[in-house]
């Protein structure tokens, strides 16, 4: 597929961390089938160290949605929650070596889904994180200020 680069294709064809963690410490969902993309992420967190020990995704969506979901889970596993909260869509896209311009705004849902999962974890465990300040998991869409226009 000329549309996607080799790395994106690899993450799409052989996605890492597919599935749903049973009894996950945190679950986040973002997007909707009506919009064309919907991602669910589940995480396991070591409550002492706040390190994300496992993450799995399920995504309804196009190639870039699946590839970026897969990349996102890879990126947060082993990170602390605070570090994971700093993972941006821009970084995910950069790790993927770029996406077609038109795909950038629509099908990269991971940073919101990660935040939602951590929000869920934080709520369940009565924790607060600077990176979650002002975050509303049910908000419609966040302004993606620093998303590059063309990559």
């Amino acid at each position, binding site marked *: *597929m000329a549309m*996607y680069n080799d790395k994106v*294709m690899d993450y*799409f*064809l052989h*996605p890492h961390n*597919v599935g749903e963690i049973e009894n996950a410490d945190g679950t986040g*969902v973002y997007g*909707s*089938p*009506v919009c*064309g*993309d*919907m*991602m*669910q992420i589940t995480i396991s967190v070591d409550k002492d160290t706040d390190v994300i020990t496992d993450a799995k995704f*399920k*995504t*309804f*969506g*196009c*190639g*870039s*949605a*699946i590839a970026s979901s897969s990349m996102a889970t890879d990126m947060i596993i082993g990170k602390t929650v605070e570090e994971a909260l700093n993972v941006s869509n821009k970084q995910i896209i950069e790790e993927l070596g770029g996406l077609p311009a*038109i*795909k950038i705004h*629509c*099908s990269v849902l991971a940073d919101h889904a990660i935040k939602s999962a951590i929000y869920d974890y934080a709520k369940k465990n009565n924790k607060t994180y600077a990176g979650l300040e002002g975050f509303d998991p049910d908000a419609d869409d966040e302004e993606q200020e620093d998303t590059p226009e063309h990559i």
Partner: protein
Amino acid sequence: MRQVYLDYSATTPVKKEVLDEMLPYFSEKFGNPSSLYDLGQEAAAGVAQARGRVAHLINANTNEVFFTSCGSEADNWAFFGVTDAQSAKGKHVITTAIEHHAILHSGEYLSKRGIEVTYLPVDHEGRVHPEDLEKAIRPDTVLVSVMLVNNEVGTVQPIKELAAIAHKHGITFHSDAVQGLGNVPIDVKDLGVDLMSFSSHKIYGPKGVGAMYMKKGTKISNYLHGGAQESARRAGTENTAGIVGFGKAAELAEQNLESHIKNVSSLRDYFIEQVKKNIPDVIVNGTMDGRHPGNANITFKYIEGESILILLNEKGIYISTGSACSSKSLAPSHVLTALGIPVEMIHGSIRFTVGDFTTKEDLDYTVECLTDIVKHLREISSVNAEKGW
């Protein structure tokens, strides 16, 4: 790897017989058909023969067929030419919600410049209702444009009836028959249309050639201005090789029409049957009654079309999708939307079109791959049959 092309509605390969007839027109019979000397008139004769063949296929008079550069140009011509020539009569155009973008975007452009455009709805099977046309007609309506065969779901519209309604009110009737040519019988006289658009590359002819049927006496301005080509109706040096190819393709389409329809539709029906048998949660979109013989538009619930497309591509299988993801505008198919199909289902819809080179083995291979791919994507998906949407 096996290659299975199932996107004949997008375009078709040029048939060998067609290319063979085209070849001499590139470097030998290369004259300009407007030139009076033999080399030019030889090229003009090729164009004339092609015109006769296209005319014959649609039962038109030869001098009512005008070559264009594509189906889109013919569609534009109908919209801009009629609204210009009949501007004194009125500024209202009627078309449908499921037309090709060549029609819709022409309408959109005109509607920003003083023309009012009414879009007729279709029912959930994809059919325009004649009563709706009757109701939409106004005293200032100058053009009714309804496509013969839809490009996404293959629905065939009741053009004869619709044209009669338009004519009862003295309104020019155009039909985009780009998907119809070679796939359903077309008799412009019987249908009673004034204008009809065609495209070569959908009937195993080359890309870059189209045609407009223009009934004698139709009030329509020119669209491409310049030299006196095409009886001074469409300027620009003729794409002679392309036109000759279109002519040959038209001749073949006429010869093969019955067998083409029979073969292609039986393969298509077989394919739908196999898909339904092997894959749960699928929906066939559009009516099966009066439909493009090769078209199967199928929604695979809970997954998204672009993903299916890419995974089929990995298997050498080529199809298209109504998914927003794979359109440049990110809008889901306006046709499926007009049929009332829920957006989440549109995202998972795939258009398969069977054509003259498709074999049963191709389809078996496709069903096999498709079964695995759908299963895989449903496993990855965040929605599924149990959870529901």
